[in-house]
């Protein structure tokens, strides 16, 4: 696979604060990545470093195998950081033409990209007259001007109303379906869950997890069971080789699954041992639960 960005032990220290601590991960072409973490966890600082606006303290990062300087590489990247920054006194089209000049892209792209984000009819309005949602969409158009190899979005739906959020997500989905690699930083779990295939979770600048979204916790889920004889149920579950920790929550017995198995497997096993269940359900932790679990591990 083609590597687009590799980060190796990247660190940023602001005075006494370690904003990013020995962070390493790689981004492969064609995937949609999410950087997930609570506010102030170092997401934007990390992106700032790879985007040449924040100086790193130590460590390194390489764009496209590191053959060219960062600012040359950035011409093949589209990025939006936090909120959209444009010249307020210039119109949408003028602003995008300026970006074309910087990136060295022909100007006919401007209309094409404005079309994608649905701003073509407002192209001659000044930027300062735009609503936040429109500004954000203009920022996406600007990031797409060079048909980037990777699109970096930092909190793209921050501060938008539900309709705006929906529009932005639709645009992102459309772009992702074209095969563009996307790196999305967010503190919103469902956003990452809905859009991303891979996720990097960071907290206080430390990486907690990186890999496929389904692979967090390497979890196979858990059973919730109920039977008349709760003690026997717990005993039998403890004897099963594929079941990990067994615990009691009210009347329900919670059994963590350690190897892949289905609800019918456990039902058959218990029935063969002479126990019939009154309630059985297999669940998976939602990303939210897993995320909270992960981020809490280090505080405990």
């Amino acid at each position, binding site marked *: 696979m083609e590597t687009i960005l590799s980060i190796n032990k990247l660190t940023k220290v602001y005075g006494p604060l370690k904003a990013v601590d020995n962070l390493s991960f790689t981004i492969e072409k064609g995937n949609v990545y999410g950087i997930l973490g609570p506010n102030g966890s170092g997401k934007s600082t990390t992106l700032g470093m790879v985007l040449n606006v924040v*100086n790193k303290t130590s460590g390194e990062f390489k764009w496209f195998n590191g053959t060219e300087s960062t*600012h040359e590489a950035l*011409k093949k990247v589209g990025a939006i*950081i936090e909120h959209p*920054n444009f*010249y307020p006194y210039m119109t949408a089209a003028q602003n995008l033409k300026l*970006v074309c000049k*910087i990136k060295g892209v022909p100007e006919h792209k401007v209309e094409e990209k404005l079309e994608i984000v649905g701003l073509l009819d407002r192209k001659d309005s000044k930027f300062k007259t735009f609503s936040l949602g429109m500004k954000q969409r203009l920022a996406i158009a600007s990031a797409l001007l060079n048909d980037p190899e990777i699109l970096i979005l930092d909190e793209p739906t921050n501060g938008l109303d539900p309709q705006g959020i929906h529009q932005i997500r639709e645009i992102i989905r459309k772009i992702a379906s074209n095969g563009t690699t996307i790196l999305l930083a967010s503190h919103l779990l469902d956003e990452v869950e809905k859009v991303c295939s891979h996720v990097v979770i960071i907290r206080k600048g430390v990486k907690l997890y990186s890999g496929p979204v389904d692979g967090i916790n390497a979890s196979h889920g858990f059973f919730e069971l109920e039977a008349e004889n709760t003690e026997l149920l717990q005993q039998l579950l403890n004897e099963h080789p594929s079941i990990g920790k067994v615990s009691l929550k009210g009347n329900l017995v919670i059994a963590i699954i350690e190897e892949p198995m289905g609800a019918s497997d456990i039902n058959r096993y218990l029935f063969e041992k002479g126990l019939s269940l009154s309630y059985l359900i297999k669940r998976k932790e939602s990303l939210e639960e897993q995320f909270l679990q992960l981020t809490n591990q280090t505080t405990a």
Partner: protein
Amino acid sequence: MLRLLNIEFLKLRYSRSSKILILTYFILITFIALIASIEFPIGQVNFRIADQGIFNFPFIWHFNSYIAATLKLFLAIVIVSMMSNEYSNRTLKQNLIDGLSKKEFILSKFITVMVFSIVSTIFLFLVSLILGLSFSDYNEFSIIFSDLDYILAYFVKLTGFFAFCLFLGILVKRSAFALGFLFIWWIVESIFYAVLRWRIFRESDIADKIVQFFPLESMSNLVKEPFSRLNAVQSAANQLGSAFEKDYSIHWYQILIVLVWTCIFVYSSYALLKKRDL
């Protein structure tokens, strides 16, 4: 390089306030010609400024470059704000993310500043030439084109001053405060000079020798005030028995000092930008 200039030109072109200030600046330079029409009666004689020889070649080069240089404040406002607005609109960050390097960013600003200086210089040259040709008492070719080093000094002075403005724009990040800082700097230099001249080195010219290395002083030294050079003023002074002995000419080391400051300002701007997290 043309790409960088192009980028900067686009940014300025759509900014109404910048356009108005730049236009005002150039119009005011042409208004130097209006001085020619000033007349006022002293007793029975009608005193006409234009007859006092201010438009004589080669004195006009000195006189006009001095007057035009006072107008540089208009462009200074444009330059300070074109720098600090990049901070307040956060477009500096976006420019860098879009693939402009910090070096290119500073370079694009500096090239623009150079273009401002070059255009001002050419403009001043043409205005002075036309004024001189219509009012000067001497029109020999060799006289017209003597003392042109004032035009060169004007160019160096503008470039140095604008580089200083760029640096202040980056340092302070807010245009109003940057201009305030410029004013404070000027006051500090003046106080320094006053202390050196009247307290520490009385009765000697050591103070002047030190102060000529200060940035603003070195720039104003390049083109000194021309009024005391006027015939009328000279003869009046002679009658009072206090003839001026002032060196109006431009020395290579004065130009060098300003050029060194220009380099320092441009390089510090770059170093500052490089060091900063945006």
